[in-house]
């Protein structure tokens, strides 16, 4: 059986939007450098939160360390918010920002 996508309660869908298939705005999940979290720790957190392999986690960790920030993923609001929560639970400095286009 195919799952039917239902709007969230309180969400109003205008007929013109529904027919045009308006895309949900996307957000970037960004991790920022800080002088406190160790590189090994950051790598471990990326692997735990995103399920990445060591190579990918280290690539993003080095981006954070060398460039001051790394865009970890691009998602709809709820998923982006979820990832920020997970990263902040591990005390990483993570934020979300509108992706633009």
């Amino acid at each position, binding site marked *: 059986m195919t799952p039917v996508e239902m709007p969230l309660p309180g969400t109003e869908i205008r007929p013109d939007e529904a027919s045009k298939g308006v895309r949900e705005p996307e957000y970037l999940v*960004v991790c*920022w450098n800080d*002088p*406190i*979290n*160790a590189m*090994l*720790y950051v*790598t*471990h957190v990326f692997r*735990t939160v995103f399920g990445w392999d*060591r190579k990918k986690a280290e690539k993003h960790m080095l981006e954070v360390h060398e460039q001051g920030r790394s865009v970890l993923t691009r998602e709809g*609001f709820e998923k982006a*918010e979820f990832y*920020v*929560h997970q990263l*902040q*639970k*591990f*005390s990483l*400095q993570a*934020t*979300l*920002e509108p992706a633009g286009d």
Partner: protein
Amino acid sequence: MKLVSREHGRLVFRLNSREYDALRAAVALRSHLTRRRRPLTGDTAVSGPLRGAEEDLDEALKAHRDELTTSVDVLLTDSVRCALQPRGVRLLTLDTEDANLLLQVLNDLRVGAWERLGCPDFEAGERPEVNEGNFMCLWAFQVTEMFEAHLLDGLMGED
């Protein structure tokens, strides 16, 4: 603290009585080392739905912190997962989930102590002066760092 074995996703650490007491004392400091508010976005002028989401994050982090403290207290007093051996030695058996819980608590403490110390950049050579007001933070910072390193060693060696 020493990693004794790592099998099937289970880590077993041996802690002598002083290490165990230090770990318990560090975890007990959590209520004194509260954390700064952490933003959801880098934008300082948050408005509309993001403001609500920012408040949700705050609440979620506070609730998570309380849950973590309780879970770790239970873990460290569990007679099976933290089994008492002769001479006060403890064998701490952690599955990956427990190890991550403990890691989060220790890092939260470490960052909380660092914030209380004024966020010094240790890599850049900044060293806070030890005084009556901050010696406990310096102690918590060092102790949690040591336990964290052992846990990470165990977890990262899993691959």
